[in-house]
């Protein structure tokens, strides 16, 4: 079902200008948000908001905060203090404003994604693919639904896209600031730090270098020392400032354990689309620290190999790490894999090399139907149990994993393709065939 919706709009978006697409969809979204109060139905859905991103929990925290109770003293609130400060000062806290804010955040995210696409193509004028790229983010059910549920993961997605966009446009300081803000709000996004730094340091920036893997290697000592280190220092300074601001806002450090380490210590076992919660409900308590370490290390272990292998194309490394975040992070919502899927639209050069796109799509359709059904069967209907929902999250993980693996493979394959046709064109057909296959 999701696939059909996506494509009808895709074809519609093909010839339409970006501005028209963005404004139409945004207008529709605003209508949707107000004609029927969708967010009231969706805000409790476990697939759409995790304890770290739930709107209702944010409201609870704001209430406590406004009544001079430390919201971090209970085991309910895990949002960053920056959310508290923003929603209690600059942005009035009302459902109406929130619906508008989330809609515009989505539009901004889609716009940023289009800018990333243009930067990758090296053009600044509109391209024919703009609307398609925007639609892949705006009408992607995985990103649309969490946004309708007012999950803060949508805001974090927008920040992610903004950080990548600014990095693609070589705006060092704004990009690092956006990234620092993102990581303060959602510490597990630390995975994206390395590829974004590489993106800033890379000589050709976001341009597609997948086809020429031997060029543009940035992981040389002088470059790392001269460019990456200062960038990291700047990033660290921003983080320090934001942490200071958080401490000032919340008037203490109690948020550190509840917010910064929530993704590591897993204090709340509310089910979500990820793979952590079930393991840790089943586990003996004395094994908990060990497995928390293993799960965290597992998440971090991907950074180095992907950044090394794709040092010639850091934007692609960012895509893959986002895919891994969506699959393996501690408190994912549908928005995380959704961002990965939307970002794939920026890399059309890998499409023809995907090995099993239909299998991945079918897995996603299965998972997208099973997740809400089994969640309902367990928690509303009462006939199923946690194992049902866990099984569906496994299907979802398979779907996400298949997507990431296929992209990884296709990204490597593009390089070999060009290598063989470019350098071995003179050799006989048999040779070419063999190499192409590998």
């Amino acid at each position, binding site marked *: 079902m999701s696939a059909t919706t996506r494509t009808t709009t895709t074809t519609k978006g093909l010839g339409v200008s970006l501005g028209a697409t963005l404004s139409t969809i945004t207008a529709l979204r605003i209508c949707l948000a107000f004609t029927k109060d969708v967010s009231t139905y969706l805000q409790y859905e476990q697939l759409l908001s995790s304890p770290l991103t739930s709107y209702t929990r944010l409201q609870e925290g704001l209430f406590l905060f406004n009544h001079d109770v430390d919201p971090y003293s209970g085991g309910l609130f895990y949002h960053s203090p920056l959310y508290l400060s923003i929603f209690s000062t600059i942005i009035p806290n009302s459902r109406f404003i929130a619906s508008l804010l989330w809609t515009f955040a989505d539009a901004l995210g889609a716009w940023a994604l289009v800018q990333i696409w243009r930067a990758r193509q090296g053009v600044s004028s509109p391209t024919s693919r703009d609307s398609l790229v925007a639609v892949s983010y705006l009408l992607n059910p995985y990103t649309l639904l969490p946004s309708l549920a007012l999950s803060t993961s949508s805001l974090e997605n927008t920040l992610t896209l903004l950080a990548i966009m600014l990095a693609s446009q070589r705006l060092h300081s704004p990009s690092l600031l956006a990234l620092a803000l993102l990581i303060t709000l959602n510490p597990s996004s630390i995975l994206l730090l390395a590829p974004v730094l590489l993106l800033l340091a890379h000589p050709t920036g976001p341009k597609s270098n997948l086809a020429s893997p031997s060029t543009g290697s940035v992981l040389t000592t002088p470059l790392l020392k001269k460019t990456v280190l200062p960038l990291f220092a700047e990033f660290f300074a921003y983080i320090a400032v934001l942490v200071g601001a958080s401490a000032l806002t919340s008037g203490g450090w109690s948020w550190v354990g509840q917010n910064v380490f929530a993704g590591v210590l897993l204090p709340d076992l509310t089910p979500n689309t990820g793979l952590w919660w079930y393991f840790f409900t089943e586990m003996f308590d004395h094994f908990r620290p060990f497995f928390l370490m293993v799960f965290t290390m597992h998440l971090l272990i991907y950074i180095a190999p992907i950044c090394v292998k794709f040092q010639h194309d850091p934007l692609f490394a960012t895509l893959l790490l986002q895919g891994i975040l969506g699959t393996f992070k501690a408190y994912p919502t549908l928005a995380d894999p959704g961002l990965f899927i939307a970002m794939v639209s920026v890399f059309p050069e890998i499409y023809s090399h995907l090995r099993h796109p*239909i299998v991945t799509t079918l897995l996603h359709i299965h998972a997208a139907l099973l997740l809400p059904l089994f969640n309902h*069967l367990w928690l509303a*209907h009462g006939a199923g149990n946690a194992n049902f929902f866990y099984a569906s999250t496994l299907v979802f993980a398979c779907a996400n994993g298949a997507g990431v693996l296929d992209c990884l493979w296709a990204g490597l394959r593009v390089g070999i393709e060009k290598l063989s046709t470019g350098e071995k064109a003179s050799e006989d*057909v*048999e040779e070419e*065939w*063999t190499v*192409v*296959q590998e």
Partner: protein
Amino acid sequence: MESPPTKQTTAQATLVPPPPPPARENPVKRFLGRLKASPATKIRRRKAMNAKIHKNLGWLKLLLFIVGYVWMLVIPYPDLGRKTYSDENALQPAQVHTSYNWGDVRKADKYLEGLESLVAANATSERIATHLSDEFAKLGLLTATQAYNLSTTNDLSSGVNTYAILRSPRISGAEAILVGASWLSRTGEGDGTLNLRGVSTVLSIASFLRRSSHWAKDIIFVVSDGYMDGMQAFLTTYHGQTQSNIQAQPLRHSSGVIWTAMAIDYPAHSFSHLGVFHEALNGRLPNADLLHSFQLISRYAGGVPVIMYDHLDWREHPALRKQFDWVTPKWLPRSIRDRKELKTFAYHARNVWRHWGYQARGKASGIHGLMRQYRIDAFTMFALPAVGPHGFHAIGKTIESTLRTMNNLLERLHASVFFYTLTAPDRFIKIGNYLPSAVIVSVAMMFTGLGFWVDAGWERILVPGGKALAIGGKALAIGETAFRGEDRWKQRSRPVLAVLMIMALTHALGGALYTLCTTAVFLQNIPILLPLISLLIFGVPIILSSFIAPSASSQISKTLQALNLSFASTIISITTVLNFSLAALLCALLGLPLALGSSAAPTRSSPSSSGYPLKYPVYTLYALLGYGFLTLGLLYSPNLVVQAIQGGVRDWEAFGVWFVPLFCGVYVPLVVQAGVVVLLA
């Protein structure tokens, strides 16, 4: 090493190069070489394996289809199931001494007299409800009536429910048990037979329970008006839900969370067996522990044998043999027909068939079925009309003992299974023994779809011997010896976007069908409008498909069939868990028919043959399978079709049964897509 002519995946559309001639090596070297093969050899081996799988895919699919369908047919086979058992230790079924006695029977008779005189006086619902409420009030129970209106597109029903609450003498009634009886019996799915004895039983049980003090849960007595409508109004109000087409008075008294419930249906003077009805809305079932407990209680505490539905076991009632002739037809030799296993199979098959009839359509088999959506485990005990030997005394004792068992619960029923198929009152099939059948069929469909997907990505071109071939604007001189007169495979892109558009269009057509079906105009003029609408659905794909260029159509057809099968397979495999009977029905209707789709079409090896003569007959067959059968049914039995459609729409609007939306929005579009596949082939 021979490499079969496989489909290669080179990026640039190219040709199959012949494998190099196998070098003559000594066996040891060859063996070692196998272990440490060069990448090229590995690739060739992988290709050979893929080619083998692709070549034998047809057999694999056939095998899966056969296994799946045969498995479905043997579900009633006795050895697939097992005896029911009690998983929840707290239940302690039939472990108490019952004290419902002849004095209570006398009271029940008195209540019955009162009700009969009201019916004889043609009293209104309100009058009856007031009378019932007065009777409850005389017992000292909290009681009230509730008037309701339930309006659907084509129908308006109203009535007055009566309910009473016996407050738990021991605990603060955080939980409750519901004992209900509908005014109309479930005989003939609510054909108007009155459930007077059922209502009298509820009253006499209320007066009996008033005397005892061991109840740990509130007991709610509900006499709902109508067949299902009253109970739906009561339950939605009780759970604080608003259903836009129900106007019901608020409840004056309320109680705790209802965990379990039983509905009493006792339509005739006496009964011989108690029948269990357990299907809830949308194919849901109550916890199996409850049914097992009731079966034991009825047998040992009440002394009444239990049956499934109103099906007597023909092994004990040989006169009923006729009813089973469709399972064990008369022409079978006596030696086979009278085998014990086959007799049991026939008995089980009849029960399973009845069960599938309720579950696949999502219908509830009684008022108990409305409760599952609120997590209430419930069933209906149906007193099978007979000249004897049982009456109020037996049913009263059974109810008392069942209430004691329900009262024992410390938490909701959760231990035993919610997914099962009862084949007999004391036998059931576990999910693992019936679910794979539908999943296997859906896997076969998925394989078929993926096979078509692969096919759609490749084009076969005949290469005349020794000619240069121009592909992708690049001329490659091909060695003559290698390629003489063979066909080649060329990769081509699949028109996925166009196909998804077609699929979206068919689903939009289904949506339009649904919108039409739920209008009052349609529901009142079904015999005229149904053929018109069917004609429309028949015509639209023909007209639209004529706009597709013939050069692209076969390609679109293949891809459409691939996605159609994959989507249908997904729907089936997901439905299996929620509603197995519906999945089995979809397997039967969609499985082979969609997979066979274009197999009657000319193969690609003879593209020259113009047209496809069977195109329109096959398309018509699909139309019949999808929606035409309703129009055809109008010719034979207009009333049946009209009632089926009106009933289906009413079930959706009043109780939220998903069957009609699913039929319009998923089933019809899927079959229409298969028709389009044929049109474009």
